[in-house]
C-alpha cells in the first residue's frame, strides 16, 4: 500500500533537493560570514599554525640552498636510483593541484552547483601545490643556473631544446596549467574583491581592494562577458586538467623502463591525481569549516558527494594497480614480470602495500553513508589518501629504478635528512601560502554561492506563509 501511495506523489516531493546553503541564510549573511573571516582579527590558532608552517618552510628553503651550494650529492639519489624523492614530490604536488581546476572547470560544465562552496579554496590550493611542485624539477637539474635552457629562446650557442622530449612537454604543460589556473582563479575573485572593497572600512584597504577588483560594478553588461569568459575558461581547463597529468605520466611512459613503460599511465595518473586532490581538499576544508563556522555553506552534503568522488577515483586507481599487475603477468615480458613481483614482494614491499591499503582499501569505507557523514572517518580516509598517493609515486619511481636490468647495478635507495626536510619544507610552503590566502582573500566564492540560493532564480516565488519545514534539520 505504501508503495502505491508513494508512486502517486511526484518524485520531486518524495526526494526533495537539499538546499546548497543550509538554514535559509540571506545573501547578507553570506557576505558577512565569509568576508568577516578576512576582516576580523586573526584567531590565535592562525598565528600558531603559520608560525609552525613558516618555520618548516624556512628550513626547507635552507635545505634547498644547501643543495644548490653543495651539489645533488646531499640527496640520497644514486645510480640506478637517479630520480627519487625529488620527482616523487613533484608528481605528488602536481597531483594535489588537480582538484581545484577539476572542481572549477569540469564540475562547472557538468552544472554541479555544489562546487561553488569549495571552488575558491580548491583553486587556491591548486596554485600553491603547483608552486611546490615546480620547485623540485627546478632544483633537480643540478646546475640550476642552466635551467633557462628549458625555455625555447634564441641563444648565441644556436642550440634549441628538443621539442620532441616528454620533459619539454612537461615544462609547457605545467607552466600553462599554472598560468591558466591563476587566470581562472583571479577571474572568479574579481566580483568578490568588489565585495571586499565595498565593505572595507580603512582607506588603504579600500584602495587596495579597489585596484584588485578592477573597479567591478556587477552590471549585467559586465556579467554577460564575464560569464562567457568563465564558461570558455572552464571549457579550456577541462582538457587542460586532464592533459597535465597525462603529460607528466609521459615522462615515464615514453621511457623503456619496466614499471614505467605502460599505456595505462595517462588515465591512471589522472585518476590518481583527482583522488589525491580531493583528499587534500577534504583535509584542509574539514577543519576550516568548523574553525570559521562555515557548516551551513560547506555542508555535510558537500562532504558526502566529495567522499563519493574519492571512492570512485580510488577505485579507478585500484583497478589500474590490478591491471598493471595482470598485464605484467599476461604480457610475458620477464623484465616486466620481475619489476612487478619486486614491487610487491621485494625489499620495498612495505611501501607498495602501504600504497595499496591507503589508496584502494581505505576509500572503500566511503560506501557507507554513516561513514561519509562522520568527521573523524572522513578525515582519516583523506589523510590515508594523502599518504597513499605520496607512496604511489615513491613506488613507481624508486622501486622501478632500484633493480634495473643488470643485477650487478642493483642498489637500495635511502633518503638523507636533506631529502626529508626539503619535502617537509614543501609542505610548509604549501600550508603557509594557504594560511595567508584564507587571511587576505575570501576563501569561498561569495558571488557564486549567492547565485545558487533559491531566491537568486529570477522565477523564484517565496513559499506561502506557514510553518517552514527545513530539509536541513534532518541532517543537522
Amino acid at each position, binding site marked *: 500500500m505504501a508503495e502505491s501511495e508513494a508512486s502517486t506523489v511526484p518524485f520531486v516531493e518524495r526526494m526533495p533537493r537539499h538546499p546548497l546553503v543550509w538554514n535559509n541564510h540571506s545573501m547578507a549573511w553570506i557576505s558577512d560570514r565569509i568576508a568577516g573571516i578576512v576582516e576580523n582579527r586573526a584567531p590565535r590558532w592562525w598565528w600558531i599554525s603559520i608560525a609552525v608552517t613558516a618555520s618548516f618552510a624556512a628550513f626547507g628553503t635552507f635545505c634547498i640552498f644547501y643543495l644548490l651550494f653543495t651539489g645533488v650529492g646531499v640527496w640520497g639519489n644514486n645510480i640506478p636510483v637517479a630520480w627519487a624523492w625529488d620527482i616523487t614530490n613533484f608528481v605528488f604536488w602536481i597531483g594535489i593541484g588537480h582538484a581545484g581546476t577539476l572542481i572549477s572547470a569540469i564540475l562547472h560544465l557538468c552544472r554541479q552547483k555544489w562546487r561553488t562552496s569549495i571552488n575558491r579554496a580548491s583553486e587556491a590550493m591548486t596554485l600553491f601545490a603547483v608552486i611546490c611542485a615546480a620547485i623540485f624539477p627546478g632544483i633537480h637539474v643540478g646546475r640550476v643556473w642552466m635551467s633557462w635552457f628549458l625555455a625555447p629562446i634564441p641563444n648565441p650557442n644556436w642550440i634549441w631544446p628538443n621539442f620532441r622530449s616528454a620533459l619539454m612537454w612537461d615544462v609547457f*604543460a605545467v607552466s600553462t596549467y599554472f598560468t591558466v589556473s591563476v587566470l581562472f582563479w583571479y577571474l572568479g575573485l574579481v566580483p568578490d574583491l568588489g565585495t571586499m572593497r565595498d565593505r572595507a572600512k580603512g582607506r588603504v584597504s579600500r584602495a587596495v581592494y579597489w585596484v584588485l577588483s578592477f573597479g567591478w560594478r556587477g552590471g549585467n553588461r559586465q556579467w554577460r562577458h564575464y560569464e*562567457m569568459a568563465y564558461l570558455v575558461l572552464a571549457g579550456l581547463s577541462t582538457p587542460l586538467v586532464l*592533459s597535465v597529468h597525462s603529460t607528466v605520466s609521459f615522462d615515464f611512459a615514453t621511457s623503456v623502463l619496466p614499471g614505467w613503460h605502460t599505456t595505462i599511465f595517462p588515465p591512471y595518473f589522472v585518476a590518481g591525481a583527482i583522488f589525491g586532490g580531493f583528499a587534500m581538499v577534504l583535509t584542509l576544508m574539514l577543519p576550516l569549516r568548523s574553525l570559521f563556522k562555515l557548516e551551513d555553506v560547506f555542508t555535510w552534503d558537500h562532504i558526502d558527494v566529495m567522499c563519493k568522488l574519492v571512492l570512485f577515483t580510488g577505485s579507478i586507481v585500484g583497478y589500474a594497480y590490478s591491471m598493471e599487475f595482470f598485464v605484467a603477468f599476461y604480457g610475458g615480458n620477464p623484465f616486466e614480470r620481475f619489476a612487478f613481483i619486486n614491487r610487491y614482494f621485494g625489499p620495498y614491499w612495505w611501501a607498495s602495500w602501504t600504497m595499496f591499503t591507503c589508496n584502494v582499501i581505505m576509500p572503500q569505507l566511503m560506501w557507507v553513508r554513516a561513514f561519509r557523514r562522520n568527521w573523524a572517518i572522513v578525515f582519516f580516509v583523506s589523510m590515508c589518501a594523502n599518504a597513499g598517493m605520496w607512496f604511489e609515486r615513491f613506488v613507481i619511481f624508486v622501486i622501478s629504478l632500484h633493480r634495473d636490468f643488470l643485477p650487478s647495478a642493483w642498489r637500495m635507495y635511502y633518503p638523507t635528512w636533506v631529502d626529508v626536510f626539503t619535502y617537509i619544507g614543501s609542505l610548509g610552503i604549501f600550508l603557509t601560502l594557504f594560511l595567508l590566502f584564507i587571511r587576505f582573500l575570501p576563501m569561498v566564492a561569495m558571488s557564486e554561492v549567492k547565485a545558487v540560493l533559491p531566491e537568486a532564480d529570477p522565477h523564484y516565488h517565496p513559499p506561502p506563509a506557514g510553518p517552514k519545514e527545513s530539509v536541513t534539520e534532518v541532517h543537522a
Partner: protein
Amino acid sequence: MSAAAALKKPPFAVIAEFSDAAALYAAAEKVRDAGFKFWDVHSPFPIHGMNKAMGLKKSPLGYIIFCGGSVGFLTATLLEFIPSSYLFPLIVHGKPVDFFTVPAFFVMMFELTVLFSAFTAFFGVFIMNRLPRLHHPLFDYEAFSRVTNDAFFLVIESTDPKFSEIETKELLATIGGKDVSLIYEND
C-alpha cells in the same frame, strides 16, 4: 554633494533599487520593452536569463577567444617546426625531423592554444567591460556599495535618447523601483 554643486554637473543616470532578482528581472523586461538603449542592471551575481530580459545578444567574446587560441596554435607550430626542422635539426632515436615528426608536437600545440585562449579570455572580459577604471559615477551613490552584497539596481543612463529626468524616474517608480534617484557625473 551639496545641491549647489549638483546643479553644475550634468546628470549621469537614474537609479532605482529592486527588492530581489525576480523583481529586477521583471523590471528589466519592462525597460527593454520601453525601448531604452543605454541602461544596465546591477546585481551581486549573474542572474540567469537576464540577457534575454534585457534584450542582449550572446557575448561575442567567444569568437575573440577563438582567434586568440588560433594565434596560440600557430605560434606553437612555428616555434616547434622552425627550430626542430630548420635551425637545429636534432636527430633523436632516429626519428624524422620533417613534417612526420608532428605527433610529438601535439602536446605543446595544445598547451599554447589553451594558454593564448586563456589570456584572451581574461583580458578580453576586462577590455570589453572597459575595466579597470578607478572611478565611476555610480560609486558616488551611497546605497550602491550594497550591490556587491545583496542589493539589486536598475540604472538608465542620461545618454539614452529616450532619457528624461522626470519621465524616466516616473517609469522606474511605476515598475516597482524604490529610492529612485538621480546620479550626477563625476566632474
